Every structure is written in structure tokens, then in C-alpha cells.
């Protein structure tokens, strides 16, 4: 703002730098103005609630005095809620189930998305536009509705899937019982998520120059070899990114199992960590414990994501060297 009329001379070494500096500073105001709405909203919707949450997590509602039904009273307990969450075996059990879920779901999600993207990208494949749309469509279906639809399709007596399998002599296990519940949950998540990931990888494939493929083809590569040696390396960054999304999504898994839980005894209220947060906050009216657990989970997510991003930097560096 100070020297917008600075002389435009570029005779010495220092002059251009000074000029650049002044221009940059004069544009700071505009840059800040552009980013101000985002920052204000970020403060309102993210920062203040998190600070508030941290505060909540350090209090506890203790039994009040003065009668059997006296209101509870707030008491400062410091890190007490964190200690009791970490000391609770059901918390660790829910993390264990989350790990099982993520370890199965994420690779399946990635593998299916890559395969579908490659198929969509093959030459001479039929019904391409229709398939692309159909695969993407479930991404737009709310999880309340997805769980309702699959909830019906999981019932052997009325599901066309079971009837079809039965008619060819195949007996499918009941998906709402026992460990099959992982299949039931993973299926709903995959159904809703593959489309998004497959389309991202597919669009990355589209940006691959045709000459590179033609050259490989002229070298005698078949489609499989092209996919493996030309296409896959090209979409590696996109794949890593979608993997990151899938991992974050897996760690935040909540609404699909929550919606399915009223259909089966195999999903209880602390099945996954965020379901426990929901139970504490909504069924137990214990916001303090819910806040502590969710802050622990957020920390874990951040750490894990940093790990994945670190891994990506590592692999891309390796690829460049």
C-alpha cells in the first residue's frame, strides 16, 4: 500500500526484488480479503467447536445432591475422561473391529475401482457412458436410503439375490448374522464409494497422452501389458489420493453400521469407535465422554493420514530417482 508508485527501473540487482516485494505486499490485502470468508467460516465451523470440544472433554457430570433425581453437576476432571476411555476394553475392541473393517474394505475398494477404471478405459468396450453413469450413481444415494435398500436385499426370504443364488444351487450365508456382518457393512460402503474412486482414476487415465499408448501398442504390448506398464504408473498419484480418501472414510465409518444396527444383533452400540461416540452423546447424554473419545479418534486419524502422505512422498521420490 505504501509505494504503489515506485519507480520502474531495473538497473540494479536489488531494484527488481524491492519492486516484487512491494507489489506482493500491496496484494496481501487482496489475498487476505479473498481468503477471509473461508477463514471466518473455518473458525466458526471447525476451530471454535474443536476448542469447545476439548473443553467439554475435561469436565464430567457428577451425581447431584439433594434428592434421588437431583440434576447432575459439572465437575472438572482434567484428563479423567481420556483415561477412562483408554482404560475401557470396549473402546479397544471397537478399534480392533475398525482395523478388521478397514484392512478388508480399503484394498477391495481400491482394487475394484482400478479394475473398473481400466475396463472403462479399454478400447472397444461397449456401453461405456452408460456403465460409467451407473457405477457412479450410488455415490449420490444417502446412507439412510442405502441401508434401507440393502437391509431388504439382505433378508434371505425376500431378497432377489438370495433367490437367484438359490435357483442355481448356491446357498448364500445370512449376511446379518455373525462375522458375515462385516460383509454386510463393507458391501454397503463399497457400493456407495467405488463409483467416486473409479471415476477419479478413470479421469486420470483419460489424461494419459494417446501417443504413449499407441507407442506401447506398436511395440507389441497387449492391453494387459499396457495397463500394467503404462496406465497404472500414470494413475499412481490418483490412486494414492483415493486410497487416502478411502482410509479416512474407513476411520470415520459410522452412518452405514448405525443404520444397519437396528436390523441385526451383530452390530451393537459400540461396534465401531464413532458409534460409541454417538451412543455416549445421544443415548447416555454424556457429551464429555463423547468429546474425549472423538478427540482421541481425530488425533489417530491425523497421525495415520500423515503416515500415508509420508509413504506417498517416499514412493514418489523413489519413482523419481
Amino acid at each position, binding site marked *: 500500500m505504501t509505494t504503489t508508485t515506485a519507480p520502474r527501473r531495473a538497473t540494479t540487482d536489488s531494484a527488481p526484488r524491492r519492486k516484487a516485494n512491494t507489489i506482493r505486499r500491496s496484494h496481501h490485502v487482496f489475498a487476505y480479503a479473498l481468503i477471509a470468508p473461508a477463514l471466518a467460516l473455518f473458525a466458526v*465451523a471447525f476451530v471454535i*467447536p474443536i476448542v469447545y470440544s476439548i473443553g467439554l472433554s475435561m469436565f464430567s457430570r457428577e451425581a447431584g445432591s439433594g434428592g434421588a433425581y437431583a440434576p447432575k453437576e459439572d465437575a472438572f476432571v482434567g484428563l479423567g475422561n481420556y483415561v477412562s476411555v483408554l482404560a475401557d476394553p470396549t473402546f479397544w475392541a471397537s478399534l480392533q473391529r475398525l482395523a478388521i473393517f478397514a484392512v478388508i474394505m480399503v484394498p477391495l475398494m481400491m482394487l475394484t475401482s482400478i479394475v473398473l477404471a481400466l475396463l472403462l478405459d479399454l478400447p472397444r*468396450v461397449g456401453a461405456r457412458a452408460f456403465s460409467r453413469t451407473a457405477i457412479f450413481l*450410488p455415490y449420490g444415494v444417502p446412507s439412510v*436410503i442405502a441401508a434401507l435398500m440393502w437391509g431388504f436385499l439382505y433378508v434371505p426370504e425376500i431378497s432377489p439375490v438370495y433367490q437367484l443364488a438359490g435357483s442355481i444351487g448356491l446357498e448364500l450365508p445370512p449376511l446379518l448374522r455373525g462375522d458375515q456382518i462385516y460383509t454386510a457393512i463393507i458391501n454397503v460402503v463399497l457400493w456407495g464409494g467405488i463409483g467416486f474412486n473409479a471415476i477419479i482414476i478413470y479421469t486420470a487415465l483419460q489424461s494419459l497422452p494417446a501417443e504413449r499408448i*499407441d507407442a506401447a501398442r506398436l511395440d507389441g504390448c497387449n492391453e494387459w501389458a499396457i495397463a500394467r506398464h503404462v496406465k497404472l504408473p500414470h494413475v499412481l498419484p490418483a490412486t494414492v489420493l483415493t486410497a487416502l480418501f478411502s482410509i479416512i472414510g474407513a476411520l470415520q465409518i459410522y452412518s452405514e453400521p448405525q443404520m444397519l444396527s437396528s436390523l441385526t444383533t451383530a452390530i451393537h452400540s459400540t461396534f465401531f469407535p464413532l458409534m460409541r461416540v454417538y451412543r455416549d452423546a445421544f443415548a447416555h447424554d454424556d457429551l464429555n465422554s463423547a468429546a474425549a473419545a472423538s478427540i482421541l479418534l481425530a488425533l489417530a486419524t491425523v497421525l495415520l493420514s500423515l503416515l500415508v502422505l509420508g509413504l506417498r512422498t517416499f514412493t514418489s521420490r523413489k519413482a523419481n530417482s
Partner: protein
Amino acid sequence: MSRAFPARARQPRNVIATIVLLGAVVYFLLPIVWVLFSSTKTTGELFTTPAFSFGSGFFDNIVDLFQYQGGAFAVWLGNSFLYSIVGATLSTIVSAAAGYALALYDFPGKKAIMIGLLAGVLLPTITLAIPQYMLFAQWGLTNTYWAVLIPVSITPFGIYLAFVYAKASVPVELLEAGRVDGSSEFRTFSSIGLPLLLPGLVTIFLLQFIGVWNNFLLPYIMQSDADLAPITVAMYLMLNRGGSEPILYSIAIAGSAVAVIPVVAFVLLLQRFWRLDLISGSIK
């Protein structure tokens, strides 16, 4: 978008790939087709007739659906559109401005802002929803449209996409040229930057539209006034009515069919505008 394949017309179709692809299509469409068939069935037929057969209750279901709670479904549908359109528009504008600034300007605190926003992507929404509710309640914002619109207006992911796209598509030289011509920063932004950003912004809008359309927890927590609920909340309430009330499967399924139609139309109409390569191109 499309690449020219050599001699594609002369060669036969890739049959195996097509079959596998169509198999996947069957899987992805199965529940949607199921819900469309089921929406034609009465409560009795729903549990006693074959899945892919038409029932006799379509008209009744739709009438019941739109008469449920005094015609509330139309209001909920309207709310869903309002939240999705206004929310996506606001977040696209906010993302465009912030992404543009972060991509093309250098200013103190930029790095810290980037890191903070990225960390925001990692937070589970349920973690934020409860404190958001309690704060918004104190600010007198719960039970207003703002209670949903403010939180969905800021999407760290949208800003990130706008940032990536601005970096890739707005050449710094253009800005410099604008400055030399004496054009103001704002003019440069609005007349040069924004048009270049437009395809990317459409993508952000579409992603955010679907995100808000599917959002359940935020409006469920924020709005106790049924007139402000979107259809996701309404569907949940139809399916969780407590022990002494019947569960409204036939209405809920009709509602699902109706709720899925706009999304289908949306995806069909607008998929040519998707620029998802900006996501995949974002990591270089």
C-alpha cells in the same frame, strides 16, 4: 475427454470387458431398481410378492408420502434442494476465492492456513457436529436454515480442489499482465481468474451438492423443527419411530424412490461437466 483409438471402428467390441462391466452395472443398479419396483407395492405386498414384480400400491404410496404429516414431504424435499443448492453455491464461492488466493499469492501465514485447512479434512463430521450444535444454539442459529448452511459453506476439500485447479489453469503471467495494464486485483480475479476456474468450480459445486444432499447428521442434530428438515432426516424418522408406532416401510421406500430421482437426474445431466481429473491431477 475422449481419446481417439486407432482403428476402433474396424475392430470388434471387447466382449469380455463389456460383460464384466455390465455385471458391475447390474450390481450398482440392483438396489435402485429394487427400490423403484418396491415403491409400487402396498405394505402387504412388500413382504409377500417377488422383489421384481409390480405391486398395486404405487399411487397410494405416493399420495400417502405427500400427505404424511400434513404434506411435510414436499417441504422436506424443498429443504433438501435449498440446503444443497445454496450450500453448494456458497461453498463454491468461498472455495474459489480461497483457492485462488492460496494458489496465486504469496503472503505471510499461507503455509499455516494450508495445513490447518488440510487437517480439517481429517476430522470426522460427528466429532464436530455436537460442539457445533451447542455453539450454534448459543448464537441463536439452531432451528434456522443457517445452522446447516454455515457449516456446509466451508469445505476444506473444496478449497483444496480450487487451489489445485487455480494452480494448474491460471497462469501467473496473466495476472502480471493485468497488473501492468493497471487493472485492479479484483478485476483480474473476476474477469480473468474466475472464467478460467469455471470448469473446476462446477466440479466443486457438484461434489458439494451431493455431499449436502446426503448429509444426515448435521441437520438431524441442528434442526428440531420438522419444517427445516431435509429428506434424509425425514427418512430416518420414518424408519425409527419407537416401539409403539408402526414402521413406515412402504412410505419410506416411496420416499427413497422420489429422493433418488433428483440425484439420478443430476448425475445424468451434469456428468459432462465433471472435471474430476483435477482431483487426480492434484498430486504431482
